[in-house]
């Protein structure tokens, strides 16, 4: 905008001269014309020597004068308009210059403008950033302002720029202010070129000391955080290892004496059968069954803790064979209880871990067979439903049901709702179910009411 106005002005200077010349000629013509007319009329009408030749000359002069003054008038008007335009442009330019100057003066970035190697403009902010007055600053280059340790590498950069003609777009370095305090600045360079010649160079300067310090602080914190995480991870690893060795010794050491109790009570019953009365035999049986219960407790606990420790990789599994596997393992139980188990085939494929899934379905099915009122034949129905890319496997029984009040408790470790005399068990079965399903990325739940049977479901992704 500003440059356009300047060009227009330069062009107008010629027209300005022409305007004055034409104005003067017009004034002269305007004065001369009435004089000629006056003398002409006097000549024609009041001179007795009037001749038609002279009259003709007069008329010709008159026509020339009139047409000349007419065209002069037209041109004069035209030039008048141009001059007016020029005045307007001058005002516009002044306004524009004022706007840009205010912008540069009040910019949040420092600005220095260099023309032909000389600094021609410095704004207020530049003085603030560098800590020098305008006069001082106009005599100092970037290399002079930079901190001593920066000068060497800046010189390399500037020399390189000189050689290749490629100015850097951006530079960051430390400077030392007049009072000796240090700031970290970012310079951005903007060049105006005509061919290969640099007309002027704008240097925008931003004080990024605080930004840099914040970044450093952040880096320090991040480093500290990383250290902390590492430390905690190590601690957790240690605890985990301890836990692992704990379960290891549980599986080894705790079971050894138990095996002895069980083994020798068997030996006692067998080898000394004649020396024991029925009461003695009953005591031995109690010892044996107590040891059995302890063993299944340890077994269940181990498989529960194994679920936490071991990696469970899900893959596509056909539910059909999985359920068949569980049924064959429960065959004796089903026969003994004369249970009726119906499976609605075909069963789909799901994403899961085979042996974990077998354990889950085993626990749910054996619960369905176990928790029935005395004398009732267990009836279990198993089917699947699909929705939204997940498969739900349902196991419905005609058992004693679960009071909704105990909804959450049944999934907790060691949580039992009945005495072990009525319904033997360790109280870990459903805890294993829940943990297993969670590890495989699924969900488990049930609908049940006291005395109305239960409907357990597990939900796993289809793909």
């Amino acid at each position, binding site marked *: 905008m500003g440059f356009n106005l300047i060009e227009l002005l330069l062009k107008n200077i010629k027209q300005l001269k022409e305007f004055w010349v034409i104005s003067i000629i017009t004034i002269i013509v305007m004065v001369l014309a009435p004089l000629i007319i006056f003398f002409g009329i006097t000549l024609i009408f009041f001179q007795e020597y009037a001749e038609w030749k002279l009259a003709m000359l007069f008329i010709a002069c008159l026509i020339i004068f009139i047409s000349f003054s007419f065209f002069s008038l037209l041109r004069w008007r035209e030039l008048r308009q141009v001059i007016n335009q020029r005045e307007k442009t001058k005002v516009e330019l002044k306004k524009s210059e004022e706007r840009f100057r205010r912008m540069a003066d009040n910019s949040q970035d420092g600005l220095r403008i260099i023309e032909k190697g000389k600094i021609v403009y410095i704004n207020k902010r530049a003085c603030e950033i560098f800590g020098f007055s305008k006069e001082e600053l106009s005599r100092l280059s970037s290399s002079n302002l930079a901190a001593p340790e920066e000068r060497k590498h800046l010189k390399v950069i500037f020399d390189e720029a000189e050689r290749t003609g490629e100015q850097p777009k951006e530079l960051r370095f430390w400077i030392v202010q007049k009072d000796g305090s240090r700031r970290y600045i970012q310079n951005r360079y903007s060049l105006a070129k005509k061919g290969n010649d640099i007309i002027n160079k704008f240097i925008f300067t931003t004080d990024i000391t605080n930004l840099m310090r914040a970044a450093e602080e952040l880096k320090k914190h991040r480093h500290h955080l990383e250290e902390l995480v590492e430390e905690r991870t190590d601690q957790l690893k240690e605890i985990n290892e301890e836990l692992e060795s704990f379960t290891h010794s549980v599986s*080894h050491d705790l079971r050894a004496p*138990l095996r*002895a109790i069980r*083994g020798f009570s068997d*030996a006692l019953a067998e080898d000394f059968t004649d020396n024991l009365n029925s009461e003695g035999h009953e005591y031995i049986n109690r010892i044996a069954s107590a040891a*059995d219960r302890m063993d299944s407790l340890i077994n269940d606990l*181990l498989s529960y803790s194994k679920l936490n420790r071991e990696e469970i990789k899900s893959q596509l599994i056909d539910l059909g064979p999985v359920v068949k596997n569980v049924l064959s393992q429960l065959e004796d139980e089903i026969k003994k209880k004369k249970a009726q188990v119906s499976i609605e085939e075909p069963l789909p494929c799901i994403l899961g871990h085979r042996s974990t899934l077998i354990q889950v379905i085993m626990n749910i099915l054996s619960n369905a067979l176990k928790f029935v009122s005395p004398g009732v034949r267990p009836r279990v129905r198993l089917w699947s439903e699909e929705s939204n890319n997940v498969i739900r496997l349902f196991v419905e029984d005609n058992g004693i049901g679960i009071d909704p009040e105990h909804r959450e408790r049944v999934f907790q470790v060691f949580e039992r709702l009945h005495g072990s005399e009525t319904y033997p068990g360790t109280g870990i079965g459903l805890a294993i179910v829940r943990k297993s399903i969670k590890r495989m990325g699924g969900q488990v739940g049930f609908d049940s009411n006291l005395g109305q049977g239960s409907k357990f479901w597990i939900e796993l992704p289809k793909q």
Partner: protein
Amino acid sequence: MSSVHPNILLVEDDPNDVLLIKRAFRKINFSHPLQVVEDGEEAVAYLAGQSLYVDRERYPLPSLILLDIKLPRKSGFEVLDWLRKQPALKRLPVVVVTSSRDSIDINRAYDLYANSYLVKPFNFNDWLEMVEALNIYWLTLNEDPDLEF
């Protein structure tokens, strides 16, 4: 068929288990000698024929080793590792008999070339079945390898 005088080296530190295993062998009328050592170092000494075990008449090389994993001084794994590196003994059949059902232990045992891995049974009838199976499979059906000296 197996050697004429099959004998077993039992490496087991728990005296209760030793007693139960001995009783089980007795119950199946297994009349051959059952040598017992109580820790890993002793097992190595026995197999190498060192110190006390120099007398091969009294302490013959076994045709089967029953090896527990958790042992004092040297673990069953260390014994197994050592054994498989002995040119003269490396082919000896080793059945790991332990209480751990941990897959880490099971896999480690097979990595060290155990011939079989059994978990100590809980009640005595299962002990009997296991010992009987061991007798039939490893001491009767199974062919002994040559041990090189």
